């Protein structure tokens, strides 16, 4: 117990003197998580809305598969992409392994099922009259989708938050595809893993606290947006 408290005290002391390396790891974490969430939304929103509103045979199976994909382990995504991106792999010529782009690719795959499932549920949850009203007033398919997004914006924002939260805190993909290269692909989570393994527990805790605070701040921001969106 005493040891734990000592480590925590040391961690809080370190927080006050965060160096450039920590800040660069934080910037990368935020950057890749944001980019992969945006990309996952770009694909997940249209798919989720289209599937959510459509009625077709096999929809339930598709939804079940999507939900099963929510449990996809980050390590597995990392492994599969690693084999594809390594120099002898299928996409080896892209030379993306151990770059931030590789992390974004992996995180995007990680967030996509979650974002799609949540958008799908949100689209199904939007009152059916929204689509019918838009349709009878002459809206194009594009405008109908926009209207549905606008009417269910609270639920769609929740999908963004969940997607961001999922990728921001993951370590498996960043480690395997980024390689934890200092100043280049080191994210906050891989830094924590490294420092803790090195025995630098207070620094690990300090980084963990940073991660938590940032996640909290992002969530508060979205909560605020959501409250404004649903008066």
């Amino acid at each position, binding site marked *: 117990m005493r040891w734990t408290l000592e480590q925590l005290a040391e961690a809080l002391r370190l927080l006050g003197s965060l160096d450039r390396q920590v800040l660069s790891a934080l910037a990368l974490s935020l950057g890749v998580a944001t980019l992969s969430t945006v990309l996952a939304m770009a694909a997940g929103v249209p798919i989720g809305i289209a599937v959510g509103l459509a009625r077709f045979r096999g929809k339930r199976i598709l939804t079940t598969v999507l939900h099963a994909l929510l449990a996809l382990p980050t390590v597995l995504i990392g492994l599969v992409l690693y084999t594809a991106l390594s120099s002898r792999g299928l996409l080896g010529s892209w030379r993306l392994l151990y770059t931030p782009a590789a992390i974004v690719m992996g995180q995007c795959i990680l967030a996509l099922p979650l974002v799609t499932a949540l958008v799908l549920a949100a689209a199904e949850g939007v009152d059916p*009259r929204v689509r*019918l*009203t838009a349709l*009878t*007033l*002459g*809206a194009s398919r594009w405008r109908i989708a926009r209207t549905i997004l606008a*009417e269910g914006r609270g639920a769609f924002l929740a999908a963004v938050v969940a997607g961001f939260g999922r990728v921001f805190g993951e370590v498996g993909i960043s480690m395997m595809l980024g390689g934890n290269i200092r100043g280049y692909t080191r994210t906050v989570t891989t830094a924590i893993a490294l420092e803790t393994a090195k025995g630098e527990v207070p620094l690990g805790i300090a980084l963990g606290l940073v991660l938590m605070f940032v996640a909290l701040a992002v969530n508060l921001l979205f909560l605020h947006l959501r409250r404004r969106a*649903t*008066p």
Partner: protein
Amino acid sequence: MTTCAVEVRGLTKDYGPRRVLDMDRFTVEAGSISAVVGPNGSGKTTLLGILATLEPPTSGEILLWGKPVGRSRTADRRLRRRVVMVHEHPWMFHTTVLGNVEYGLAARGVGRRQAQHRAAEALERVGLAHVAGWFAPALSAGEARRTALARALAIAPDLALLDEPLADVDAQHRGTVERILRELPARGTTVLLTTHRLETAYRLADRCASLIGGSLRDSLPDNHFSGTIAESGGEPVMTIAPGCRLHLATPLRGPAHVVIDPRTVILSREPAHTSARNCFTGRIAALAAEGDRVRVTVDVGVPIVALITDRSFREMNLQLGEPVSAVFKTVSLEVYGGKPS
């Protein structure tokens, strides 16, 4: 020759095993106001939804201005742009009242300023100019309905399908809405509205049809009675006129509609002693030949219509003003509405 804005042939609609619509032929003349009258659950909303091309029929053909619906996506889109439906409980988009009314105009590519101008005009017509800046979902049911009407009329549709346009509208604004509806044909809009109130249909429409249990009758139904099902001596009854009580066989109670098929009404010269629970004596108020049938209207306090064959009519030698008894079984009564007791 008058043109039909709407023509329906052999239309059916099934929801699972349940057939909710089954109509042979139905037309709406261009430039008219037509009403479909029927109790709740009779398929009125489904009919409007199909005519608005919001949902496909199970089978049958729909022609809008002579053009078939469902042949091609582009043609349907073009037709859909000429039609608008206002739902019984309209959805208000989460924006201002004015923003709602602008929606259809924006969808048609009308410029922002002109859209605002026309939307404000439409709101003025329904008497809601003062709430243009309000958050639309916060409106009362009646206000929302008038906003929905403004939203639909702002796009100057060729056909307006209005589901119960007067329900929830308070007495003060009923006149405004009725006046707007009456003006629509002159503005080039054909109107098809539904209502469960006969008087609304009579007051507004050039032509009324009734929809009962998903089937259409080209006129208002004979023997359509509205009242409250109450219990008397352990038996459900509905008073349809002073001293005139219908005996029913139904677990339903409360406000309801009852329809008696005129073909099941038996006429008798003497007060009949039969197993039939309903026997009313009155005088013959009207006689009309209908093919090989004769429509006999008996005034028992309310008119009860019996459809009998030409042959039995001649055999009974019925004359206008003569007393006669109308007899029918409780099981031949169709009950709509009401709640299980």
